[in-house]
């Protein structure tokens, strides 16, 4: 298994994180501001990039699990840094090292497909729905389509 340091370096390289100029556009565009009441520099894309660059142990950091992996930060970055790719890679590293308390497993296929805080947000928004519906949403999209096919075709 690759050491954690190597994985972080790889993620940095792939996402172009060293090019960050800390302009904060990604933070302005980030939908997490809307999603979490405790949104702050800690979990913002800029914060994660910075922590990665200064050599913090980001793989074990809970803050990498708030991101929805959307395109907005990547789209607005003047330096072409992809915070999405960085966080995706960091999460992959965490999963490979079995730091998975914040990763959500698909109930059907067992693969990790979502982060727990993101799921909490979705379920919070859907709290009016009955329990069985929320239970059915605990599967990854491809399994969910598969299940829906078997029920309806």
């Amino acid at each position, binding site marked *: 298994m690759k050491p954690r340091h190597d994985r972080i370096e790889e993620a940095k390289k792939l996402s172009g994180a060293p090019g960050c100029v800390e302009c904060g*556009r990604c933070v302005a565009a980030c939908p997490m501001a809307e999603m979490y009441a405790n949104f702050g520099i800690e979990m913002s894309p800029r914060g994660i990039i910075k922590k990665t660059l200064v050599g913090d142990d980001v793989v074990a950091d809970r803050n990498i699990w708030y991101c*929805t992996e*959307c395109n907005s930060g990547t789209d607005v970055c003047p330096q072409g840094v992809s915070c999405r790719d960085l966080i995706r890679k960091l999460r992959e590293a965490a999963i490979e090292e079995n730091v998975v308390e914040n990763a959500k497993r698909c109930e059907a296929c067992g693969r990790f497909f979502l982060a727990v805080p993101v799921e909490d947000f979705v379920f919070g*928004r859907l709290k009016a729905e009955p329990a069985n519906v929320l*239970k059915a*949403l605990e599967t990854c999209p491809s399994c969910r*389509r598969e299940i*829906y*096919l078997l*029920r309806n075709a």
Partner: protein
Amino acid sequence: MPETRPQSGLTLEDLRPREPEKKKFSDRFMPRRNNTILFDPAKCTGCGTCEMICSTRNVANVAPASASVKVLSDEKLGKNFAVLCQHCRRPLCLEACPTRAIEKGDDGIVRINDLFCVDCGLCTMACPEAAPLKDPGTGEIHKCDLCEGDPLCVKHCPEGALTTTRGNAFRWIKAARWSVQALSFLFLVILVVGTFCYFRAGTVELACPTGTLQNIASSGTLILVGASSALALLILTVLFGRVFCGWVCPFGFVLDLVDKITPKKLGWPNFLKSRMAKYGILGGAVGSSAVLGYQAFCTVCPIGTLCRSYGVQSVMQSAELAIVPALAATEIAERRSWCRYLCPVGATLGIASLLRLLKIVIGARKCKKFSCIQCAEVCPVGIINADELREGVSPKIPMTECIMCLRCVDRCPYNAAKVRFRWQKSTPGEANA
């Protein structure tokens, strides 16, 4: 992509489907209808033409992976299926979208506003069918917008598995049911002298089966003539289910009328929510008849009192006059709560309907499940499990409780609620009841 996302100032409330303005009378029988895509899995061959043509609209290329529709084939069981947005009446994706980019229009189309969408994919996570599709190339979210009312996939599907529908133009079952109910009320309550609990015209004899049961209990003798005339209603029930409750019963008609003026329901207390209670009441009525020596329940039966007290030539008995409005008031709690929980006449017919020939099937091939749920909304006795439909499962209908009013069949815009013979096959993926 704009530099920064415009601040919308929209609230979720602005995006949710709006309640239509005040209903006109014609809306009740000729509903305003939106176009929707209907998919028939039995006709689908999995050729993927819908994906091709859809992608030309999304990315200006033939790129099936970038389409808003996904064709799945289950190779073992030989089923083909197209996953596409159902344009829910109450979209969950709308609720989950963190940037408020999803909106349900007045035309019924659920749209993603590209200005606000950041392709986070939470709509996919909230959709019971995972219909918003992530483009594996660009990471963008593609979702059907019905081509603004004239879908390309429908035009190009070679097998006709995709069609558009607006649902029924006229709710003729509804019209027929109200007419039959009104006519039977007129005939049984107003015109017939006395009650129709025991009715005789020439050689035709009819009797209320519950009354007959009490009669047998109280007198201790089985009167064959009375029993055989009670059979008529039971045979009707075996043939067609509890159509008496849904189409004939004059008290049911009164309840339906009261329901029209009390659209807001207070809710039936939970501890009384037992559909078995009416069987208990039936047992109690028969038992107490045996003890008391007369038909105990018949004195307070709302159907009987309605006939006895409200007819043109009936004797107005002040005590009896009060029973009908008192029991009709239960309608404020839940629709047909009398019939659901208490009515022993319905209980007798329910027992007879164990031998039924017909059944109601919800969720036949073209059912849109979670996106629609109109059948559960219109069911007066609340036996269609909306939660199961929300999950995407076809609910099983307890036929002893069904009053065969056919509201679900009438309301379903997709012909997915059907009357079938008992031995005919049920729907795919039916819940285990």
